């Protein structure tokens, strides 16, 4: 049909706009990062500054805190657009909502998952992570946080019309996060022990791609239901 435009402009505009609003909301932008940084800073103080005690728990610790930091930021993904009516304008725009959702979640990931990944070597240093594991840590977080963002978006979309959906969101999402966490940490742990680590990383990559492809379908459906209220 000639009156439906190429969906690429919808994708680009949605992404641009998300980045713009995220950058203007600076206080919220840095919340997950500060959370991530401060917990990892407390571990050597609270547990033990000894590298022998820290190194074995480092992969798991960094991954768990990254996961929680992401979870905390999730309920914001659709909230403000739901409240000010932008969401219904997106749904009625005549553009593919699937692409708009991918753009929104990708933008959210850029300001959470990507930043956490870039920050992770510093935290690896604090946690006395062995040198061999840094590449595995960054690669697994890069792909893993992508999967977490897209899976989490489904929960965020389902709970967007609830006033206090935070707890419900966690209950829906945490079971789905378990496989990502298991394979993500096992990649880093294998690397730290000097074993091959591309196997578990490939599983994380597969989860990331699957989530990226399938989760937006569920998100679109969930948003339509949420808007019916």
């Amino acid at each position: 049909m000639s009156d439906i435009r190429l969906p690429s402009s919808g994708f680009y505009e949605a992404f641009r706009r998300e980045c713009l609003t995220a950058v203007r909301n600076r206080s919220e932008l840095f919340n997950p990062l500060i959370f991530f940084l401060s917990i990892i800073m407390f571990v050597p103080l609270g547990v033990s500054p000894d590298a022998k005690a820290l190194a074995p728990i480092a992969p798991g610790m960094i991954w768990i805190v990254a996961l929680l930091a992401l979870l905390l930021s999730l309920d914001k993904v659709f909230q403000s657009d739901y409240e000010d009516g932008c969401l219904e304008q997106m749904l009625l725009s005549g553009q593919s909502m699937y692409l708009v959702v991918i753009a929104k979640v990708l933008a959210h990931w850029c300001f959470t998952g990507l930043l956490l990944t870039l920050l992770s070597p510093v935290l690896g240093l604090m946690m006395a992570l062995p040198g061999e594991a840094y590449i595995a840590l960054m690669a697994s977080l890069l792909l893993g946080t992508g999967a977490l963002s897209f899976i989490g978006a489904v929960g965020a979309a389902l709970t967007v019309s609830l006033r206090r959906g935070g707890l419900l969101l966690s209950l829906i999402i945490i079971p789905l996060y378990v496989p990502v966490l298991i394979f993500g940490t096992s990649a880093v742990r294998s690397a730290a022990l000097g074993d091959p680590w591309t196997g578990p990383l490939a599983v994380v990559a597969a989860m990331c791609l699957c989530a990226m492809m399938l989760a937006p379908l569920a998100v679109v459906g969930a948003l339509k239901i949420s808007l019916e209220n």
Partner: protein
Amino acid sequence: MHCLALEKLYFEREDLPLFGGLSASWQSGSIVQIAGHNGCGKTTLLRMIAGLLQPSSGRVLWDDKANRGLSFQSKLLFLGHQVGVKMTMTALENLRWFFALHGRKSADKTPEVSRDELLEALERVGLRAYADTPAHSMSAGQQRRIALARLFISEAPLWILDEPFTAIDKHGVSELEQRIDKHAASGGIVLLTTHQRWSAPSFQVLDLEQYKGRAVDV
């Protein structure tokens, strides 16, 4: 020529019928005011016609077709209670985003809207000087005007406007009325809820009170 038809619409909320047996049809050029007391389902009806809400039974037909996906949405401009203006973005950015997503929705012009047109639309609603002001530092009326500036660009055949005149001053209201008249005259259909009435020849009223609480099969 377009045609919007409602076929035996029935809607219930928590097992209580809100309205039922609602059938009507409108051709290009109609301005339809949905009237009724608070809580009789005006907003519900508009959201239903826009496709945001499914009727409990009955159908909404656009050009005799019930399937209202992307091709229907590419004919529609919807203005709800929450107008969809982002507080952290400036007036111009808000308008730019809207038309980048929606386009002009015109049958024979390109969907892209130039910056000059956006500025001109802001001029029409008296916000030219505020083009680069973030929406959060404007008054409630000005924020709504950002959304109403869309009407001066959009050529979507179907306009659905939920209380468009809220928080707008007298002069602004008469400008908007003229724009709505012009849109209907050029072949658009406009559905709106308002307490305003004006003397356009094509003006019609749909009184929701008479369908209130009716059951499915009436």
